[in-house]
Structures are given as C-alpha cells and as structure tokens.
C-alpha cells in the first residue's frame, strides 16, 4: 500500500510536469473532438496522430494517445444525445435514451450526466487498473475462444432486453444484423462471402458506417420527410442541470456501469462497444420502470456512458501488465511504445516505473481535465439545437460523410453509410427499431469466429464449453437469466389464470 502511494507520487511528479500535463491536455482535447465528430472514432484519431508522436519521448506520446482514447469516450455521447448520431461506436446505446431525453428538453441533463458518469467511471477504474493490473491480466488471458463465446452468448441474451416495442420485431432486426455481420472474408477458411467482387467488403460492414447510417442519417431523413419541421428546442439555462431525481436515478447505474465496463474492458478482443450494450440491458433489467427505456430513461444514458469509459481503463490492463493488446487501440499504443524503444511486456512496470506510474497519474489528471472541459461545453453544445434544421442537418451530413470516409479512406464505407441511412429510414417508417441491427453487426463476426475457433481447439467436440470453468460459469449465468425471464412469464400466466378463477367465483353464487 505504502509502496503504491510512493509509486503514485512518482507518477504524479511525472504527470504534473508542465510538458506531460500539456500533452495530456492536448490528447484530451483531441479525444473530445474525435468523439464529437460523427464517424471518426478513437482508433482513427490515434492512428492519425501516431506519426506526430514519433518526435516525442515515450511517456509523453503514450499519455497523449491515451488521452485521445478516453477523451473520445467523453465526446462520443454529445452527438448521440443531441442528434442521434453516435460520435463513435461505443455511444450507440446513448442514442436511444439520450436523444429521447433531448426531445423532451433534457439534453443538458443528459450531457451533464454522461460527463459526470464518464468522470466517475474513468477515475474509479484507474484505481482498479492500479491495484489489480497484474492478477487481473493473468485472469483475462484465460479468456480463450470458448470463454469468449460464452460471454457473447450472454450478449445475445441482452438482445431480448433491447426493445421497448414488439419483441418479434426486435428479434427480426437482430437477425438482420447478424446476417449483415456475415459479409466479408471467412476467417477460418479464407472464403469471400457476400462481397460481390468488392475487395473492400473483405473486412465486412464496419460498425461505424452502419451505426451512423442507421441512427444519424435515418433521423435526418425522417425529419426532412415531415410536412412541418419540428420546433427548434430552446433550452433554458436552468434546465441544463440534471434534477435531483435524475441524479438519484443515475447514481447506481454509474456505479454498476463502472464495474461492468472495467471487467469487460479487461478481456482481450472484447470491445468497449459491448460493455455499453451489456450495461444498457442490465439497467433495463434492474430498473423499476423498464418501460421508460427508449423514452428517455436517465439510467439508459448513465450506465452505458460510464461503462464505455471504464472499459478503456480495463483495456489498458493486459496492455501494461503483459504487453498484450486487448484490442486494436491498445495495439496501436503498444506500437507507439515500440517506436520509442520501450519494450512492452510483463517487465514494463519494473523497467519503466516512471512511464507506467506517470501514465496512471496522467489518467487521473486527464479525467479532471475532461470534466472541466466537458461540463461548460454542455451549455455550448446544447445551443447547437437552436440552429435551424435547414442549416444544421446539411452540416451534419457533411461531417458524417467526412468522418466515415476518414476512418479507412474508403468510398465503399460512405456508400454503406448512405444505404444504411435509407434502410434505417424505411425501417423507422415501418416502426422497427434499429439498435438490434447494430448489435447484430457487432456480435456476428465475433460469435462466429469464437465458436469455430473453440471447435477447432476441441477438434469438433462441443463439450469444450462445459469443460472449461469460466465458460461453464458464464453459460450457467445465461441459463439462469433465461429461466428467470421464463419464471415471470409463468407467473404472469398464473396471474392471468388466477384472475379467471376469481372472475369465475365472482360470477358464481
């Protein structure tokens, strides 16, 4: 404990030195902007700036790149809440209830809660990163394909909780999403599937163009299709802050989202995207008013936004403790370390204490910076809603196209986004929800790969999923969830029978 405090004071002495502080600040600002811009996510932002860091020393470079990563999670909620366009993929869930809150005039409250939730989650999860990194990293490595599949199965069960409307329609959309997720090179055999000769479709439909199209473009098209444009929201200053009730309703979701996001973030291969989906489903399951979800439930913003932030700290655990990338973003950061001659690996913490602890301390500092940066911006961003739609929407459209193009420099991605926008608009007209499609597109390749990898490991025996303790436990949890929902089903049935019996008695003598 004492040692940790000494190390941390070393870290703060590094993090608070003027230049490191400057780079943390720059990283946070860029991250916020990258998050705010639709399409451009943290991966694109970090990739674009990686070459710029080559002139810096390792600590500054890493501090700045990390700032972009967690800064993007702060900024990502902004356009989700204001315009229903996910600023980056992990903010897809925020589109649902965040935007619904904005339509009710609670945009300021939603933005403030997202910022505070991100701050709490960001700061609390660094404590987890600091205290648990080595043991947790060893545990995370035991997540192989079978464990991952079990986790994703849980994710699929989440789908059932996504909808606020018809369950059948929601499942149909999930199936459509899973089908769209099948496009691309089959990773086990090398076949091109449903690519129609387009090499660009080899990697499948990207989450970013699909999400921006289905949510953002569809919203723009739907608004443009109305005979009279909806009234411009005129936010008043006193409505910017969350009410006491909204604070109360977000406290527990923020706490749960923090823990959940951190744990999911640690697992290699898992994306921060999933953490926000799972958190949303969890909050809906635990809520006393599940019917409010989709209509502007505060918990539907607070939970996922906290989860995606603490997932970023979680993702640093295997990276710093073992030198193992837990996803594409940590992989780029590992490369940045190598470029600077720092060998990532299990010995990093001992060999480079100033870098490791400086990095940890800079995350504390960075989160404070982001909170200070984001809370005043709430007022500014909310004012964007005052801009008439005829100016605002074309501008958004331009940014969305630029952003989606910038990710891979691919025109095919832009076409995917436009097609998804039209699809989303049609589905809205038919009263289908589009969130399950996005979840399907995210999950399908992961589920397929981990299932087939597991079977390759076991030579085709399905028993591998119950022989491995972690996988078995996760599947058992999933089974319990299914049974629990069956129980409410049965109980409701009994209520119905009981009512009939009562009615029969009433009619009796």
């Amino acid at each position, binding site marked *: 404990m004492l040692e940790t405090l000494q190390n941390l004071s070393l870290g703060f002495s590094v993090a608070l030195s003027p230049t490191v502080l400057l780079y943390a600040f720059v990283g946070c600002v860029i991250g916020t902007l990258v998050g705010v*811009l639709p399409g451009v996510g943290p991966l694109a932002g970090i990739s674009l700036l990686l070459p710029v860091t080559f002139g810096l020393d390792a600590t500054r470079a890493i501090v700045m790149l990390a700032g972009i990563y967690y800064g993007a999670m702060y900024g990502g909620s902004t356009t989700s809440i204001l315009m229903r366009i996910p600023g980056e993929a992990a903010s897809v869930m925020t589109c649902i209830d965040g935007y619904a809150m904005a339509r009710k005039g609670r945009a300021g409250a939603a933005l403030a809660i997202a910022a505070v939730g991100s701050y709490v989650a960001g700061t609390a999860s660094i404590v987890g990163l600091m205290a648990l990194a080595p043991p947790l990293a060893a545990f995370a*490595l035991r997540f192989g394909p079978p464990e991952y599949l079990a986790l994703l199965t849980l994710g699929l069960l989440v789908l059932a909780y996504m909808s606020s409307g018809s369950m059948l329609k929601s499942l149909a959309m999930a199936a459509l999403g899973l089908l769209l997720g099948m496009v691309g090179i089959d*990773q086990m055999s090398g076949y091109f599937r449903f690519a129609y000769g387009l090499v660009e479709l080899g990697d499948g439909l990207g989450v970013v163009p699909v999400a921006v199209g289905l949510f953002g473009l569809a919203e723009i098209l739907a608004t443009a299709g109305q005979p009279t444009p909806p009234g411009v929201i005129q936010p008043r200053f006193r409505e910017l802050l969350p009410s006491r009730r909204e604070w109360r309703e977000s406290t527990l979701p923020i706490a749960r989202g923090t823990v959940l996001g951190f744990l999911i973030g640690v697992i*290699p291969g898992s994306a921060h995207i999933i953490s926000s989906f799972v958190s949303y489903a969890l909050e809906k399951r635990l809520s006393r008013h599940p019917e409010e979800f989709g209509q502007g439930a505060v918990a539907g913003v607070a939970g996922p936004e906290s989860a995606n932030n603490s997932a970023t700290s979680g993702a640093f655990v295997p990276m710093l403790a073992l*030198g*193992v*990338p837990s996803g594409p973003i940590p992989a780029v950061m590992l490369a940045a370390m190598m470029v*600077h001659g720092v060998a990532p690996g299990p010995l990093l913490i001992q060999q480079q204490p100033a870098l490791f602890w400086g990095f940890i301390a800079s995350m504390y500092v960075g989160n404070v910076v982001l909170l200070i940066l984001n809370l005043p911006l709430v007022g500014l961003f909310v004012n964007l809603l005052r801009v008439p739609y005829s100016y605002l929407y074309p501008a958004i459209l331009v940014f969305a196209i630029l952003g989606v193009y910038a990710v891979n420099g691919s025109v095919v991605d832009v076409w995917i986004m436009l097609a998804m926008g039209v699809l989303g608009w049609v589905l809205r007209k038919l009263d289908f929800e589009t969130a399950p499609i996005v979840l399907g597109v995210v999950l399908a390749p992961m589920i397929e790969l981990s299932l087939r990898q597991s079977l*390759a490991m076991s030579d085709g025996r399905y028993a591998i999923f119950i022989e491995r303790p972690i996988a078995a436990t996760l599947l058992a949890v999933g089974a319990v969830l299914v049974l629990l929902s069956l129980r409410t089903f049965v109980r409701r049935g009994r209520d119905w029978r009981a009512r009939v019996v009562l009615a029969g008695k009433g009619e009796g003598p």
Partner: protein
Amino acid sequence: MRARPMAFALLLLATTAPTAAAQEAYPARPITLVAPFPPGGVADLTARPVAAALEKVLKNPVGVVNKTGAAGAVGMQFVATSRPDGYTLLLALSSIAIIPEADKLFGRPPAFTVDQFVPLALISADPTILVVPADKPWRTARDFIEDARKRPGQISYSSSGIYGTLHMAMELLSHAADIKLRHLPTPGAGPAITAILGGHVEALASGPAAVIAHIQSGKLRPLASWGVERHPALPDVPTFKELGLPGAEFYIWAGVFAPKGTPAPVVARLESALRQAVAEPEFRGAMDKLKTPIAFRQGEEFRRFFDADARRLAEGVRRVGRVESK
C-alpha cells in the same frame, strides 16, 4: 474539429510546396507510400522511417497512407492499378505473394498479381521463431517434432489468420518435418500471441520482436528459427536448417514496390534513393528500436529472393488447399 483542419493544412502544404521545383524532373510532386495494413503493424512501422529517410534523400515530401482491408489486398490492389509514375509506391510484406495464390485457389478474379509490381528494395527480412509455452515438456525442436509425429493433429498452434504469414511458416515446417498440427486462426499477430500466452494453443511461429519480451520473462521458450542463420538476438536457438529441415525456411519481410510500367529512369532514381535512405542514421536508429534488423537487397538480388519466396509460399498455399469449413 481540430484534428481535421490540421490534416488539411498538411495536405495543402504537401501539394503546394514542390510545384516550385522543375516540372519534368522526378520527383516533382509528393510521393505516397502505401502501407496496406493499419498503423502500428509491421508494414506501417517500417513504412514510416522509410518514408522519412526517402524524404530527406529526395528532398521531396513522402507521405505514408494506410490503405487497409482484406488482409492487405485493398492497399496492394490500389497500388497495382495506380498510375505508374513513381508517385505511388507500396510497402508490402511477404503476403504480397500469398494473396494472388489464394485467389487462384478459390477460382476468383485475383485482386492483383505479383507481376503487376516492380520490386525496388528489400528493407528487412526477419525469420520466424518457433515458441512454445514454458510449462510444456518440449526442450528442443526435436522433442516437439517427435511428439507431433506420435500425436498427429493433436498439438495446436495459433496464427495471424488463414494463409497469413504465421500460418504459412508453420505449414512449411509441417511439410518439411512430415507432421500434422492443429491450426487455430486468429485475426492477427497480436491475438495469436495472446492465445499462446493464455494457454489456448501450444505453439506459435512468430516474428522475433513480438515475442522476445515474453521469452525474456520466462513465459515462452524458443525452440528453433526458420532463418538460414541463427538470429542475432537469440544466438542459442538453432535453425531448422541445422536440424536437417532445410525446407522450413521463412521470413517475414518488408519491401518497397512500384507499379509495373514505371519508367526506367524513375525506377533507377528510386533505387539509388532507397540505397541512400537505409544508410541514414535516423533510419537505422528507428529500425533498431523496432528490433528489426535491416536486410537491404536490391536489383537482381532482391528479385531472386522475392521469386524464391513467392515460389515457396505459392506451394505452401496450394498444399494447404481450400480449407473446408468445420
């Protein structure tokens, strides 16, 4: 909204600066070096110091563009079909010879073919190293091979993907040693290492730089190298050639290519510029940090190396054949 204008400003700077130079002399415009893989990978990390050194030698901007997708096929196809004027170059890895062969195997129109490129220079060539988890009983490559013969299809290894470089290395070994291993493809070299560290597979062929830290920390044990000579960073590790398996020769290499049809004077200018570029101390320092030894070859020498490698890989792909889905 800050990041974009900066990129635009750079672009603007890049396009306006060289117009002052004489129009006919090459290079008169900025050169684009396409890395067909995302930032942070071997191709990207090699491309950036190469571009920086070339820029210095040619006194002309050289920018790296990551054109990624479909295991590199998108970027390679882009360069293969771009105008052969010396302003679009490619930094390719060994997979340049694998992709057309796999396309042939599946009977689909190839995204590109190797003869659409002119090889300019080989920058680096690192042999793969066979590593196993330290808690496994195999002390030597011989132990490993004997055990694999006794239990065909039982010992599993991870790779960077089907027909990927790490898969091909293992396939060449399997053929040379007449053993059968179980293959677990993953989406990249990073996940492949994660799989062996997590104990989900029992072997891996990996580039040395990616596993040296894990060898030093005692988590992984190196058994043999696919190189012709022992690797300088691992002098105690024998080569498969020493062990009597000369067929198991494989390198993860990086080289610079131009589209076919690039005028001879431009090719000559680029070749001499690359020769000077690799001698730059900054370039040597950058490659040293990446723990990637420079293996510079040009002209006939590179062509021979490239042809031999392409032949070996094409055979490897054909031997694996079409993988029927499980």
